[in-house]
């Protein structure tokens, strides 16, 4: 179909919009996911990410645009292939195990047309890789939340779908469990060579599982990029503040490739076209500012949080702006104390004040 159709993306959205009664929940989404890649979409609740996923699964009809799976059109305003005929699995946030079926029967639910031998082999294999051996004959209600979530995922990938959709699949689990289960699931998906898209409001979860991440706000995908670039080269203020910690600090352009800020001069590339005297906001992540007792730049500690390996200080600068800084685990300072701050900016991310258009620039070529 397309020119490079030798290996088309497993999933491709072209200008997809979804809506109801004239309101659109998803507007003009265009992304592509390569074979065997895992994608994630993060955004605050109500941003349309679940609607987008339901549309990919075939539960919603697009207003405009199209969805291609393996290069073939699956959804368009004129035609939607029913969910049961798409070969796309979906896993939901609420535990949707069938309560009247055993664990094995739940996992085997989608394995129609398989021979009994194949089926039991597949179920045993899945029970094994999900660490559920010996659970096959139990009933869903006798399992813990984490175990039930594993079964739900095993059921979703049992028929070896091309693509599996995970709708807030880990949100109902507690933090500790999520921390261990998410990387496990990534390994299993990679092993089984199944592409996946996870929808979540937690960027840690997205970063832990995905090869490529989309940040969504008010129905629009703001950026679709590798996690590294989402964090270090956010395209706009929203992404900068939604993903990861950090503060925006005022700076003024001295010439076309340097900015003057409370942390001294910052060098940017001249491609950006800075005008002398232009005021911008620079993103400082916690790791961009380190605590250094010898530094002459001082900040007053407003709030501190001990993270074990390091301290995380929120400080008030001399001009009243706030910044976050990392400090060595042994540098225990009190709230109200003035501490020295040393900028450690590898690359400068700044936003122009009108907000509509924002730019970023990396000073050092990154290695990912």
């Amino acid at each position: 179909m397309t020119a490079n159709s030798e290996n088309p993306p497993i999933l491709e959205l072209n200008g997809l919009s979804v809506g109801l009664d004239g309101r659109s929940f998803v507007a003009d989404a265009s992304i592509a996911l390569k074979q065997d890649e895992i994608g994630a979409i993060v955004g605050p609740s109500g941003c349309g990410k679940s609607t987008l996923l339901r549309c990919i699964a075939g539960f919603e009809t697009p207003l405009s645009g199209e969805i291609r799976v393996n290069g073939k059109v699956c959804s368009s305003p004129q035609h939607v292939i029913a969910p049961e005929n798409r070969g796309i699995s979906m896993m939901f946030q609420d535990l949707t195990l069938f309560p009247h079926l055993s664990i094995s029967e739940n996992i085997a639910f989608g394995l129609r047309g398989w021979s009994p031998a194949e089926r039991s082999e597949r179920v045993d294999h899945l029970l094994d890789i999900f660490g559920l051996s010996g659970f096959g004959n139990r009933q869903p209600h006798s399992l813990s939340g984490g175990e039930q979530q594993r079964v739900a995922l095993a059921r979703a990938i049992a028929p070896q779908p091309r693509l599996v959709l995970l709708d807030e699949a880990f949100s109902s689990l507690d933090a500790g469990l999520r921390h261990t289960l998410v990387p496990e699931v990534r390994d299993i998906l990679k092993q089984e060579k199944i592409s996946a898209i996870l929808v979540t409001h937690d960027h840690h979860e997205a970063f832990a599982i995905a090869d490529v991440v989309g940040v969504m706000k008010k129905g629009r995908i703001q950026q679709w990029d590798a996690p590294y670039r989402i964090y270090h080269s956010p395209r706009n203020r929203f992404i900068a503040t939604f993903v990861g910690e950090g503060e925006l600090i005022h700076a003024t352009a001295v010439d076309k490739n340097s900015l003057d800020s409370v942390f001294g001069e910052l060098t940017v590339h001249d491609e950006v076209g800075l005008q002398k005297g232009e005021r911008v906001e620079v993103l400082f992540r916690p790791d961009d500012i380190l605590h250094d007792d010898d530094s002459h730049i001082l900040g007053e500690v407003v709030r501190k949080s001990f993270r074990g390996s390091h301290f995380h200080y929120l400080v008030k600068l001399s001009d009243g702006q706030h910044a976050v800084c990392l400090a060595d685990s042994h540098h225990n300072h009190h709230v109200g104390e003035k501490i020295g701050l040393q900028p450690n900016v590898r690359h400068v991310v700044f936003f122009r004040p009108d907000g509509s258009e924002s730019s970023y620039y990396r000073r050092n070529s990154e290695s990912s």
Partner: protein
Amino acid sequence: MKLQHKFSIGLIECSAPLIALIILTPLVAVAFSLFSGESFAVLKHLSETVLSDYVINSVLLVLGVSFVTLVIGVPTAWLTSVFDFPGCKFFVWALLLPLAFPAYIIAYTYTGVLDYAGPVYSALREFVGRELADQLYFSIRSVPGAILMLGLVLYPYVYLLARAAFLEQSASYIEISRSLGYSLRRVFFRLAVPLARPSIITGLSLALMETLADYGTVQFFGVSTFTTGIFRAFYGFGDPAAAAQLSSMLLLFVVLLIFTERYSRRTIRYHAAGGKRGFEVNIRLHGKRAVLSWLFCALPVFFGFLLPALILLKWSLFDAQWNWARFLQLIWNTFYLAFLAALIAVFFAVILGYAKRASRSKLIHGFISISGMGYAIPGAIVAVGVIVPLVWIDHQMIRLFAAVFDMDVGLILSGSVVALLFAYTVRFLAISLNTVDSGLGKIKPNMDNAARCLGYRAPEILRKIHLPLMKASLLTAFLIVFVDTLKELPATLMLRPFDFNTLAVRAFELASDERLVDAALPSLMIIATGIIPIILLSKTISQEIQVSD
């Protein structure tokens, strides 16, 4: 494929207003009669003579039954939810048993025992002499007697809802207030009861709806109320219009109760917003307190169920005279009628349940909630409301068939079991609807979605997921409607085809002929079947407790 899917959903959605319309027809017929002027004469006559009696007696009954059900229902609920004493586990479900008794049957039983000629007063006369015995004589056939009978079998409504509310609060509230220095008695009056008030009022409204619907007890005791008035107008004066007008006046009382109930139900949600249940409070009682608690729970069970059941058993086994062939006919009539009624009610409930699940339209949801109103409407009113439109249709049919085919078809609808089934559906649809609804609630929409993603189509999902998960709810709904149909007296009495008897009607007839002993066997049959849904109910209660643990 998609189009077909949409079409079937649309069909189900459209059926919701249709069913609501069917349910509403009798009510509209009754309500309209208020404005049809022709028989105002009868009503005027009534208002000059007996209407004030109806109002006064109905109000007295409502007040009295409120008092009795609250005094029995609330404390027993408190005792069984907060304390632990010998027999407590047993009382949790035994306190529900009186629900198996229709009020009219317990009234017949106690009348047989406590009447002037009955064994109790005969014995009393022997012991204390005639004069003193006459002074002590309390006629059960009176307003207080009716209050007592109704209260004894209706308190479980209050008990059930109050207990659920107490269990919800017990853990957190009680422990907090005790740590703040409240005695348990103060916790009960100052916290537990005020917090449970919406639930208690809901239970009370249900009990009062049954009180206003009662015909058998008040008729037998010679207490004139709206229901006896409706019957008198209907049979005595042969004036359905006057009966309908009386019905619509009674309906005003009922509507008031419906609003109270629905309003309280809404506030329950706010009051229950105290978070999850923690540990169950189980304060062990010893000595005098344990004995008193035991007695307080045992008395309602004894007088509301055990004693009358034993009396009925004795009468049926040793004293009653029965023609067994006729009795079998009676059982057959009753059971096939109840079977059909339950089947229809469950069928409609399934349609409405799915319509509610599929539809986001407020209008559809409104129609469905209207369809669930019938439980509040007394059987006598439903009967009048059913007969008026059916007779009209029948007369049109007779005229049509006479003109076109020159044949006499008779009263096809109003004179057959169709009228009865219509009335039962109106009255009991709410019950099946509630049960089916909660069953469907357990099947989350995402379960359907998960199955579809795994390649299943709608009919397969129904068969492989919905049916197995819904089986229990459907059966429960069926059984409850079955039993309620069995017990329903006034509607059956008014609408039954000529010479068609059921257990309830026969018990009523025999009792009216003062053959109380002979009425025992059909009564016992009704109660024996009536216990089944109570067992189911207590099972769901204990399941809910397990689940929340």
